[in-house]
């Protein structure tokens, strides 16, 4: 049919349909007049006409009726080919579920606005500059005196809110033996009114709760904590708890949805920022600064915002310039870098958290991977539908020739797709419901159970629906339009060119393989990164090692600390005990610049750690030269240094016996003598290059030579047990029994601490691997389907070939050649895609090159293997075709 008349038919389709109906109607009447059985006369025109006939005058009803009829018909079609339909639904469900789950996560962490008034006007103050390692860095930590100056400077135009980094703390409602852990955030008192957070019970803080350092021992609970800790007991107001040495009184509960400003952490307890020990310190950067323009004048006014930003930057710079006068021993360029930082106002409508910044890239990448899996699944379903459609070409032709409108046919095929998508969406929804929290549990370090609210509300629901709809159109529209454009004459004569259909299917196979390769390739890179990073030597042994964070009520003398350590030494199962200020890889860092022979520092920072004698042996850090600390050594005075230190400061010569200086605040310079050379260890992260490290004795003395008393310390306990945590409660008791002033606040395995550094890599590796398997599976099913279809279509030809003596090998080649050339083509395209896209995620890799032959060969071989496996059933089927039955059947 020429295009113009097809178009004209389409445009006047409605009238045409009416006329055709009328003509058929008159035909039927005529037939009845001539004595034909009315029912039989009607039957000659099929059911479609009957439906139309019955409700011809009511168009909407007619349409709904047709919708229903098509839905029923679509359902029957699905049922007819149950196995293929099930494969399609399952693969689609997996993909939709993964997509929805990824969306839930990304939404909860990165997209959802904080449940506060005017969240869209919230900003996070940050500073961007050149770090000591000469790389650009951004940091959003502030010192409170600086904050106070900035707040005063812009008081007329904006409100600044200080919120500390939420952290787990130990508190007790009764005695010290019954401490429990909770997440604490120190917040400005005026945060509650500014963000419009009302109390659910009692009262929340105001400006008046934040006047004097240490002067406001009050606490507001989050609704979540109130619910799970106190069962929403209204009597909680007025109750007290002890945190450190301060007794806090609970004054209220914040209303439900607000759980702090850090997505990923649900804060349990808010206390006024003035209760933080750092409020008077100019050199502690320990809180974030949130910024909200005052209502009215400034809204959406970029110029006004910029002028405030400049005012803030000027204020902060003046503060730091004053402070920098005390920076001795720091190179001038480092000081300049420090002062020349740019203050940034970063939108913080969704809150700010380290989980956000750490997982943003990985989540984006996972989002892309998941979308690729969805596309693979769509291509798959489109292929299966196309194969089905070919079987229905005759049916379509009859429908067109008796006047079925083309829209009607599109609707028919689309409804079948909709069934698929609907079933897949329901299954996928269940999958997402289960897998979302599962993924969150994987992001978390095991000892730090951060929680993320994952509401399944209208946002997630509408995303799921939009996805199902989009998917329906994506894989349903092409076959639908194709089916509707069937040419009745050729269709009835035996089908249109079967090759055109196969070409489409082959193209889809190539696309699938390309995407599949990409997913596999990226997964391989992430898995290798994770493996290399976790096998990274740390320089010490984490096996069977326990880390006991220990606190004392008041500062305690070294003698008492040593008593506690000795007591633990005698516990059954303990091999060796040592003291340190903090564990390795625990997150805390202490650093300084070194000057050798009075020369100015070279700008390379050295990490420091305070350790007791025996620490080396406990940690199994090798002593290369010199000796370990003796009990008589003290800080300042003696030092152990690592090999990198020797390389950087002593040109690789043995530094034992040499001296260096450290500069501390207020111009104090202290001299150290190196008593031992030790091996390099991983101090802060597994990724960064090893920096010079130096150890000073845990035993420190002040200017008068008196021992400094300490409140906090870390006991490192090397045990002989493969699961050292069984000793946890014994060790806790022993510490308190040794000296009642001491208390263990937290027990961790060193292994746990090490693993927390590969959480992101593990998440990426595990999920990418999972998606790779899903992608491979789906693509395999698709390949199987296409081959199966092509064998069915060519069974006559194959039968003839076998009849004239073709060998099995020849038949196998015949059946698979086209498809395999598509697989190769797709894989090649995948390599290209991979090379291009890898550039965007390179920063997440560790010691892995995307161009490694191995990284490319592995996914290619996997896909090839998968393709062979998927092709096997169809090849066997083809080879087994019995020419006699086949030719007779046709």
């Amino acid at each position, binding site marked *: *049919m020429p295009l113009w008349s097809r178009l004209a038919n389409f445009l006047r389709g409605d009238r045409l349909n009416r*006329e055709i109906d009328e003509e058929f109607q008159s035909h039927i009447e005529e037939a009845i007049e*001539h004595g034909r059985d009315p029912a039989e006369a009607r039957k*000659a*025109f099929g059911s479609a006409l009957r439906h139309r006939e019955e409700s011809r005058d009511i168009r909407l009803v007619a349409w709904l009726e047709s919708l229903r009829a098509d839905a029923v018909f679509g359902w029957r079609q699905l049922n007819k080919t149950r196995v293929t339909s099930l494969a399609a639904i399952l693969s689609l469900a997996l993909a939709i579920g993964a997509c929805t789950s990824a969306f839930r996560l990304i939404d909860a962490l990165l997209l959802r606005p904080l449940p506060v008034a005017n969240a869209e006007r919230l900003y996070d103050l940050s500073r961007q500059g050149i770090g000591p390692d000469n790389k650009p860095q951004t940091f959003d930590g502030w010192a409170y005196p600086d904050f106070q100056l900035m707040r005063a400077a812009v008081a007329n135009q904006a409100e600044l809110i200080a919120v500390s980094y939420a952290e787990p703390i130990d508190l007790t409602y009764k005695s010290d033996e019954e401490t429990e852990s909770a997440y604490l955030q120190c917040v400005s008192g005026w945060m509650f009114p500014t963000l419009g957070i009302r109390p659910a019970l009692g009262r929340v803080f105001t400006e008046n709760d934040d006047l004097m350092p240490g002067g406001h021992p009050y606490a507001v609970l989050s609704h979540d904590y109130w619910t799970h800790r106190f069962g929403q007991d209204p009597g909680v107001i007025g109750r007290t708890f002890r945190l450190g040495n301060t007794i806090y009184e609970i004054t209220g509960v914040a209303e439900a949805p607000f759980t702090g400003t850090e997505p990923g952490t649900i804060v349990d307890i808010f206390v006024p920022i003035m209760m933080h020990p750092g409020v008077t310190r100019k050199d502690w950067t320990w809180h974030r600064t949130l910024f909200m323009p005052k209502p009215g004048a400034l809204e959406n006014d970029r110029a006004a915002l910029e002028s405030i930003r400049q005012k803030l930057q000027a204020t902060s710079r003046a503060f730091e310039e004053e402070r920098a006068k005390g920076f001795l021993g720091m190179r001038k360029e480092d000081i300049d870098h420090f002062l020349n930082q740019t203050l940034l106002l970063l939108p913080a409508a969704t809150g700010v958290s380290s989980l956000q910044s750490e997982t943003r890239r990985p989540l984006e990448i996972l989002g892309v991977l998941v979308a690729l899996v969805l596309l693979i699944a769509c291509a798959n379903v489109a292929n299966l539908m196309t194969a089905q459609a070919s079987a229905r070409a005759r049916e379509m032709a009859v429908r067109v*020739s*008796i006047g079925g409108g083309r829209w009607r046919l599109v609707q028919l095929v689309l409804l079948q797709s909709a069934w698929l998508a609907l079933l897949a969406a329901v299954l996928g929804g269940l999958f997402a419901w289960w897998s979302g929290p599962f993924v969150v549990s994987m992001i978390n370090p095991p000892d730090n159970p951060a929680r993320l609210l994952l509401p399944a509300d209208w946002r997630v629901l509408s995303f799921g629906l939009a996805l199902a709809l989009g998917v329906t159109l994506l894989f349903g529209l092409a076959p639908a339009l194709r089916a509707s454009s069937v040419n009745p*004459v050729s269709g009835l004569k035996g089908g249109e060119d079967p090759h055109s259909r196969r070409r489409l299917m082959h193209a889809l196979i190539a696309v699938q393989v390309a995407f599949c390769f990409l997913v596999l390739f990226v997964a391989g890179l992430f898995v290798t990164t994770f493996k290399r990073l976790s096998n990274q030597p740390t320089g010490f042994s984490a096996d069977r090692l326990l880390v006991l964070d220990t606190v004392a009520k008041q500062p305690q003398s070294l003698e008492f600390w040593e008593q506690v350590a000795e007591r633990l030494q005698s516990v059954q199962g303990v091999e060796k005990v040592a003291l340190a200020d903090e564990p390795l890889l625990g997150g805390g860092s202490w650093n300084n610049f070194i000057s050798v022979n009075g020369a100015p520092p070279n700008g390379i920072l050295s990490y420091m750690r305070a350790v007791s004698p025996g620490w080396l042996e406990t940690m199994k850090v090798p002593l290369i030269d010199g000796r370990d600390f003796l009990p008589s050594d003290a800080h300042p005075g003696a030092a152990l240094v690592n090999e990198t230190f020797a390389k950087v400061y002593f040109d690789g010569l043995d530094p034992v016996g040499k001296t260096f200086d450290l500069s501390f605040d207020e111009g104090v310079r202290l001299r150290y003598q190196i008593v031992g050379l030790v091996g390099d260890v991983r101090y802060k992260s597994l990724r960064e290059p090893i920096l010079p490290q130096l150890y000073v004795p845990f035993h420190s003395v002040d200017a008068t030579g008196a021992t400094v008393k300490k409140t906090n310390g870390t006991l490192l306990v090397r045990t002989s047990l493969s699961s050292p945590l069984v000793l946890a409660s014994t060790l806790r008791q022993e510490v308190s029994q040794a000296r009642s002033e001491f208390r263990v606040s937290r027990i961790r395995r060193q292994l746990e601490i090490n693993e927390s550094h590969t959480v992101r890599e593990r998440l990426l590796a595990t999920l990418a691997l999972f998606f790779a398997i899903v992608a491979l599976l789906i693509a395999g099913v698709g390949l199987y389907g296409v081959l199966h279809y092509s064998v069915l279509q060519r069974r006559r030809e194959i039968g003839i070939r076998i009849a004239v003596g073709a060998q099995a090998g020849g038949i196998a080649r015949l059946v698979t050649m086209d498809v395999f050339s598509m697989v190769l083509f797709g894989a090649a395209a995948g390599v290209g895609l991979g090379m291009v896209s890898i550039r965007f995620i390179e920063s997440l890799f560790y010691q892995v090159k995307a161009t490694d032959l191995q990284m490319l060969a592995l996914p290619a071989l996997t896909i090839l293997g998968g393709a062979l496996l998927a092709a096997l059933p169809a090849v066997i089927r083809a080879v087994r075709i019995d020419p006699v039955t086949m030719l007779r059947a046709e």
Partner: protein
Amino acid sequence: MPKSDSLQGSLDLLVLKILSRRARLHGYAIMSAIQNMSGEVLRVEEGSLYPALHRMEEAGWIRAEWITKDSGKRARMYELTAAGRKQLGTEESRWQAVTSAINRVLREA
């Protein structure tokens, strides 16, 4: 009973021929005419007839017109166009050629 369109173009030929004898027939009349005149041997099914009519109308061999019957209902009547008459000639001679060829084979085989 042979299928109505088992021979290429035979349905077109039959319809054209009938319309050349008797102008203005509706679909049912054409169907019964073929049935009657072939002595009940040839039967055209509705599923074949209407697509054929539709196609021939598109090709311009026949034209259709709505008339109102005595009962007040409308009916669609078909008649031959000049192009259709020419096509009939072509089809007829093609048919003759084909059947005589077949006959020759039957005689000599």
